[in-house]
């Protein structure tokens, strides 16, 4: 049985109310649901909470699940709607701005003994990470899917239900903003 068939069988069982099958689907997709929520809302605690809420709502709405279509695409629509509604609240904006959490981390350090270069690279990383966290949510969402989830343009376009050109133009806008933060670091 292929992965797709396995997922389809799980979705079919989950739709019929099989908690165990739904639990397996949660375990398969919880990590990326969290990262995708993080990409939209930009706060770790809220991303965790919203991704869990999305699964809970998905379970309650399981009768609308089409087992022949990818489970995650269906879940993502629920998750995205939840995140965007969450961001629409002006109080949430104020709180997110006040307690901006640092959810991006440095991946690598140079193996070479180059303290000055290391410091500059670390500075660049810190600036870009902070700028990513401040991006408009529409741009950040696409950037996170591309850079940190390593999804193809076509996959992103399908997941978000937007044209391929829009994916690229949002990426371009996001990267232009990030480039601005590196301007004086030459």
């Amino acid at each position, binding site marked *: 049985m292929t992965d797709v068939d396995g997922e389809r069988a799980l979705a079919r069982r989950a739709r019929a109310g099989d908690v165990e099958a739904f639990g397996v689907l949660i375990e398969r997709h919880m990590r990326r649901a969290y990262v995708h929520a993080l990409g939209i809302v930009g706060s770790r605690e809220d991303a965790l909470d919203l991704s869990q809420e999305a699964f809970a709502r998905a379970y309650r709405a399981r009768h609308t699940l089409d087992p022949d279509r990818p489970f995650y695409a269906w879940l993502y629509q629920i998750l995205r709607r939840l995140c965007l509604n969450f961001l629409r609240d002006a109080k949430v*904006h104020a709180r997110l701005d006040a307690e901006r959490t640092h959810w991006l981390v440095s991946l690598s350090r140079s193996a070479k003994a180059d303290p000055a270069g290391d410091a500059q690279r670390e500075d660049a990383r810190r600036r870009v990470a902070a700028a990513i966290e401040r991006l408009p949510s529409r741009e950040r969402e696409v950037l996170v899917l591309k850079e940190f989830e390593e999804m193809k343009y076509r996959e992103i376009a399908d997941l978000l239900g937007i044209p391929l050109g829009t994916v690229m*133009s949002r990426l371009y806008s996001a990267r232009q903003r990030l480039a601005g933060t590196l301007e004086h670091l030459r």
Partner: protein
Amino acid sequence: MSPRDEFDLDRVHALMMAALDGECTDADRRELDAQLARNAGLQAEWERLRRVKEVTMTIAVGRPPEEVWDRYRTTVLHRAERGVAWFMIAAGTAVLGAVGLWRWIEAWLAMTLRWELKVASAALLIGVALLIVSVLRERWHLHRRDPYSKEVLR
């Protein structure tokens, strides 16, 4: 993507993105290189974007500790369960409230409402009216004075 003679900035930007992300064909790459070769401004922009890509490749999303994932599934299923409980509570309350209201209206119309219920009803109606007036006044006040009433962009 076919090469074009005219300068199409959106297309060049799209080509830049595709080249940065390894999603362009050889023909796209040749087209981009040709554009960059004849425009110093685009070349400078390309270098800036390349630098951004290099930096973002050294950044990752911080993941929660493993124990969070251990609890994740249970938390979701409990939430789903509680959702059903809240729905039933809300539905039960709505039905009981509607029946109570109906009985209250019947008794009110038949003038058979006991005096203590009349006092409680009057208090309830006055309270609700005061609350509505207060909320509306606050909204009106805020609407006139709040400089941030338009959408706040992050």
